[in-house]
């Protein structure tokens, strides 16, 4: 047994090396073959994807490709579709349609392979296939999470607002949910037609659905959601929903919301909510927030104090005056962050005074990712 062991290990290592080399050789051959198949159509692909095919001659050549070239071309066009928009994207979709790729993708939504189903959904989204909306809606309940996410993304690309209620319901599904982040991204691609669906979703029993609806209401400036967002901030049992509502109110930007947000920076509020509302006061951009932010500079929570200092720098001259030449970690950190966001190299950034800071960039996009991520990880009471 002891004599055999080294031989077995050696054989396993040699087998592994052979597998790696063999895989690499096969991959290289496949790539060379693919390049050879695409070579005669390279100029046609470039012309169509660059929007240099108004007369349609290059599209006609691509549409007429057959045999082994066609799958390689379909693959290349799908990759290009993800990189361009406008007329070139429409033309690439036209050729894919001529190749029957869209019909095959609709059929593939029921393929036994989850990878094929996900790729089919992706292609249908990239092609803006309105005829596939119903099937993509069904795919939101696919057993494979990647397929559900791909279907959500595709529905966002197609942009049909009629499917918004179904998308929101899928977020709240206990059996086969879709992640909040992709759902929010998809909804944001659907335009103003989702306003009613969002307002309904702000009443949904699922906190994840309410979070997504609040997030999208803010990002899309759906102002008719504002009264409900104020209620959610004040009374929702889920802290993530309250924080997201605060972030949304900052985006929707009404002066009267200064008091609404400031109320929730009080010491009796949960710390994460206090921090979010403090940040939101800065993003709201109303100088009337300055008296509410100043006392927070001395808060025992150092992160809150830093957020208050950063928020003051967002409020123009009144905010900078309130921060003044105040020292301390919070003020210094806020000024440093402002300079980094303004693009100064990190080596040259040091502790400075209020006059050095041109004003920080938008910190709200970090909130988007955080809210969606928190929603995906479940709710907190």
């Amino acid at each position, binding site marked *: 047994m002891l004599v055999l062991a080294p031989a077995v290990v050696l054989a396993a290592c040699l087998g592994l090396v052979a597998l790696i080399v063999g895989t690499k050789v096969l991959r290289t051959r496949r790539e060379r073959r693919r390049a050879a198949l695409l070579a005669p159509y390279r100029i046609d692909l470039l*012309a169509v*994807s660059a929007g240099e095919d108004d007369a349609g001659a290059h599209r006609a050549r691509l549409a007429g490709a057959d045999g082994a070239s066609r799958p390689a071309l379909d693959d290349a066009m799908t990759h290009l579709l993800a990189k361009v928009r406008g007329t070139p994207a429409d033309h690439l979709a036209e050729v894919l349609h001529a190749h029957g790729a869209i019909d095959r993708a609709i059929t593939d939504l029921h393929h036994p392979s989850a990878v094929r189903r996900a790729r089919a959904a992706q292609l249908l989204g990239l092609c803006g296939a309105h005829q596939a909306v119903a099937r993509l809606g069904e795919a939101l309940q696919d057993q494979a999470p990647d397929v559900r996410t791909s279907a959500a993304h595709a529905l966002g690309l197609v942009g049909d607002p009629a499917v918004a209620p179904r998308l929101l319901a899928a977020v709240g599904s206990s059996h086969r949910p879709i992640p909040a982040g992709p759902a929010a991204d998809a909804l944001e691609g659907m335009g103003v037609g989702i306003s009613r669906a969002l307002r309904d979703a702000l009443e949904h029993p699922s906190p994840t659905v309410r979070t997504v609806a609040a997030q999208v209401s803010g990002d899309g400036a759906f102002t008719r959601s504002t009264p409900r967002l104020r209620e959610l901030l004040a009374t929702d049992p889920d802290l993530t929903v309250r924080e997201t509502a605060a972030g949304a109110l900052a985006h929707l930007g009404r002066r009267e919301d200064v008091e609404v947000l400031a109320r929730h920076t009080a010491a009796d509020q949960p710390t994460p909510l206090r921090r979010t509302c403090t940040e939101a006061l800065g993003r709201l951009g109303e100088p009337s927030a300055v008296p509410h932010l100043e006392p927070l500079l001395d808060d025992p929570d150092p992160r809150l104090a830093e957020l208050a200092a950063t928020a003051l720098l967002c409020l123009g001259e009144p905010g900078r005056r309130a921060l003044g030449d105040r020292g301390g970690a919070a003020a210094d950190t806020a000024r440093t962050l402002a300079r980094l966001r303004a693009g100064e190299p990190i080596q040259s950034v040091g502790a400075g005074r209020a006059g050095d800071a041109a004003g920080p960039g938008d910190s709200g996009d970090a909130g988007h990712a955080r809210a969606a991520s928190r929603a995906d990880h479940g709710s907190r009471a």
Partner: protein
Amino acid sequence: MVALPDGARVLVADDDADIRDLVEFKLTQAGYAVQAVGDGLSAWEAFEADQPALVVLDVMMPGLSGIDVLRKIRESGAPDVPVLLLSAKSRDSDVDTGFAVGATDYVVKPFSPRELLHRVNAILARTR
């Protein structure tokens, strides 16, 4: 109608070969002399060797990022060369950073090649 600066040199840097080929094709068809490279270091070296009239930079590249290259260009002896950032990073904060470091324009991917050409034409027409 914007007058095209015929034959003006444009440096294009993107690690995505499809994007690089596509932008080179589009600008060449429009009459520009295009040099296309696949990473930030090559972009900086190309810029130093022969300053172009305009630079199109992808932001996320291996090694030197587009932002790093832009910063080097602005700190160089030719700070006024227009630089258009072409990036999949679309958040407000990303756009803010690009302009704060000195970008002349910022185009988000997926992009319209025609719109990109119009922006290049307009930038170069203003800088003549």
